[in-house]
């Protein structure tokens, strides 16, 4: 398979530029939020020396541009600054809380694509039938209901599945930080089962909206491609429907779906803020929410930046996936050159 490497490198460069811009923006916004972060962290009774010391440590006595340089320097040396909420290096917090959220996002993304694509294909193939209409109604409902409402609903029916594991269930040995995966690879199967049961409700709450949206996109795409000449030709040649659907119809139909899928995955991080809170998930989004509420400067910047990095990575991967699915996109820039 031929790739246009110039195209890929340009995408990478744009991504880095976007992240630099994001870092400046977030860094500045975090510092103009109301409230003295030091006083908020130390409380009204903290001694003047403690306040002074923390202010110096956070470089709050320096101009904002210098604070930014200190922060950038710290990013590359492992010193992401102190969290005012957990009193630890933010990098330590990220290592502690990000895996739980990644696991949730992976589960949500998997549920999303595994349900949305078949639903879209079935609806597209059965255009204007009862099945299509049923999927349409389900899609509208899914799009209309915010993820946190679904989360509350699910939590009501599955109250035992709050948190990553049931109380008293020993967490598996730390390998990746992903409870289900770690339990599985270390042969703690009852723990893995417990982790799986716990992840399904919040992951489904996160995935429902994207499922609905992508099912609609997929359905439209299938209907459109079903009317194209090459499909008519394949049908007229007597190819089995399964072959036509899976080999010739799915690939082009997936392109718009995958593009939306990438955007939806990125938005999962934002939606996870409330869903994690409702399920007391203890992940990165819950950490971010607390950081914002307590004006935890370094934590806020770290959370937004990591969300930004995940967004950029998912978009970059989508570019590659779409390029894989459609050679015209993959090679377009090359032919331009």
């Amino acid at each position: 398979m031929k790739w246009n490497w110039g195209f890929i490198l340009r995408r990478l460069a744009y991504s880095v530029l976007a992240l630099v811009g994001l870092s400046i923006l977030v860094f500045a916004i975090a510092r103009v939020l109301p409230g003295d972060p030091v006083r908020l962290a130390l409380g009204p009774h903290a001694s003047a020396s403690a306040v002074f010391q923390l202010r110096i440590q956070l470089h709050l006595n320096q101009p904002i541009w210098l604070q930014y340089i200190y922060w950038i320097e710290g990013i590359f040396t492992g010193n992401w600054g102190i969290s005012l909420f957990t009193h630890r290096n933010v990098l330590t917090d990220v290592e502690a809380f990000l895996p739980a959220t990644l696991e949730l996002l992976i589960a949500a993304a998997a549920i999303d694509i595994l349900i949305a694509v078949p639903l879209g294909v079935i609806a597209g193939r059965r255009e204007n039938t009862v099945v299509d209409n049923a999927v349409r109604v389900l899609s509208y409902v899914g799009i209309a209901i915010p993820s946190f409402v679904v989360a509350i609903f699910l939590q009501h029916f599955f109250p035992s599945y709050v948190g990553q594991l049931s109380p008293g269930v020993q967490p598996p040995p730390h390998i990746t930080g992903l409870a289900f995966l770690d339990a599985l690879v270390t042969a703690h199967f009852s723990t893995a089962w417990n982790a799986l049961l716990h992840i399904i409700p919040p992951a489904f709450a996160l995935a429902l909206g994207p499922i609905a949206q992508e099912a609609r996109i997929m359905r439209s795409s299938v209907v459109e491609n079903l009317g194209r000449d090459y499909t008519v030709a394949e049908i007229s040649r007597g190819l089995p429907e399964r072959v036509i659907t899976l080999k010739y119809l799915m690939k082009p139909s997936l392109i718009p779906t995958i593009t939306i899928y990438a955007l939806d995955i990125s938005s999962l991080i934002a939606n996870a803020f409330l869903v994690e809170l409702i399920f007391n998930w203890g992940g990165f989004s819950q950490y971010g929410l607390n950081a914002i509420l307590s004006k935890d400067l370094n934590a806020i910047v770290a959370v937004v930046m990591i969300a930004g990095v995940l967004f950029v990575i998912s978009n970059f991967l989508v570019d590659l996936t779409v390029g894989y699915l459609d050679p015209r996109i993959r090679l377009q820039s090359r032919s331009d050159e």
Partner: protein
Amino acid sequence: MRISFPQKTRTAIGRTAVVGIVIVVIVVAAIAGYAAMTMTSKSTTTSTTQSSASQSPTISPTTSTSVTPTTSVNSSILSITWANVPVTDPAIGSDEASTSALVNLYDTLIFPEPSGQVVPDLATTWTTSPNGTTYTFTLRSGVTFHNGDPLTASDVVYSMNRLLTMGQGYSYLFTAYVKSVTAPNSNTVVFNLKKTFGPFLSALVRLYVLDQNQVAAHEVSTGTQYGNNLDYGSAWLLTHDAGSGAYTTESANLETNIVITEYKNYWNGTNANQPATVNMIGSDNPSTVSSLFKSGQIQITDQWQPYTDVKALGSLPSAKLVSIPAVNEMYIMINTQEAPTNDLYVREAMTYALNYTAVVDNIFTGNSLAQGPVPTALPGHNPNIPVAHQNVTLAKQLIQQSRYYKAGNLSSYSITYYWVTQVPAEQQLAEEFASDMQAIGLKVNVVGEPWLTVVADLGNQTSSPNIVSVEDDASYYEAGSLLQSRYTTPSEGTWEQNEWLHNSTLDNLIYAALSTLDQTQRFQDYMNIQQQIYNMYPTIYAYDVTEIRAYYPTVVNWYAASGHPNALLGYNFIFRDFQFYPSQLTALFG
């Protein structure tokens, strides 16, 4: 043109779809069947228990028919929710969740009784020098930390020095008074004070004793640095403990919960039926708490649930609603420097215009009417101050005596009232206030602000609103604690004072009371000060806070809910004094 596949092919695809659907149905049925079996086992055990529970409070464990223990309630753990995850560094933690953990993980020299008196704990005896500036404590022998290290006087010295150096948490109680701490021998500690501090013994219940060697072994060079002590072990202490208390930290997730287990070698022994493990969950999200409680995942709710929610939980079978008095008070703080609330008559009129009964009956249901600047449960409270009550006629008369009314420009002022958006019920209080003030001709502009903005705006006088409503509580068991933090000049610019009193006479009175050694005299001084503050009408005392929680009385016998509370922050949760019946929990929820 509509394109469709030939019928034959459609049949082939249809077969594939059917196979796929069958597989999905089988998987879903398996999961549903599993869930159904679990629920069946729960309902079976629940019905058995309810009938048994009414007959006897000490049921023997029932045989669980749960299919998979991982999805049922873990009956060996007592689980409770708090507003946040406890901060378990004794030099940092000072909120309700943190103190509730600290009093179990660590020991203190003395222990506070609900009456306000202190009794021996780590210290068996103590003496005070005639001038009241030297306190000598003799330590109990045979006390060990959780790692087996013996607890000595040098650990006490280290703990106080660490608290003072870090300057956070409860350090402010001692900073102005403690000159030095020494350990003449391994079981004697001497505190030398710069000046007399009457409630020193009461304040010492906030000095949690750490294992010096264990903390020193975990000091790191990241985080806030304290010279040679590096971070003073602060990062490690957030997820571990170095105490000698009845419980020790088993695990900690700073975003969700900490789990503590009983310390078998506790110097005071272990009590029969005390919970072996306690799960302290940091979540007061109503939806989460409701689900957890209904399913038996928690046995006691936090105190921050909306009243309607906690009332519903308390009315569940086998559950109970309980009200526990606290040393908190809801203050409607009035800015005494800003027009028109800088007029005494305006403030007094507002005090009489508010419908307090509506507040405690309809808004913050279950709380009790306040009686001046100090909660009634706090030793040193002045019982002679009138209970808050509404008198609209008097309020109208008072407002007419204000200089703004006489000048005819009262209606040109709008009184800004901040309520904290994180506590939705406060909006109802603000609206009630605005409505009541309208009756006496005062215009109130109700503004909801997030806590960050409230703290920021209270940072200086010019940005402070006319009024803000905030709850505050005592750090130790004396009225002086709240009088100092609420009404002295140093607390101006913090969220604890929007009154901006600038009153050096009052400052001197409060400091003089705090320096009085004789408790009877000191309490009398507190009462006089309360009366003086009351007469200045700088605050509207909305209500005394009562903690309203739901719990399962057959599962946990909790002294605070049984009429023997210890209202000092954290002390209602001495888990060693709880009686926990896992068999009951199993019987109720499987």
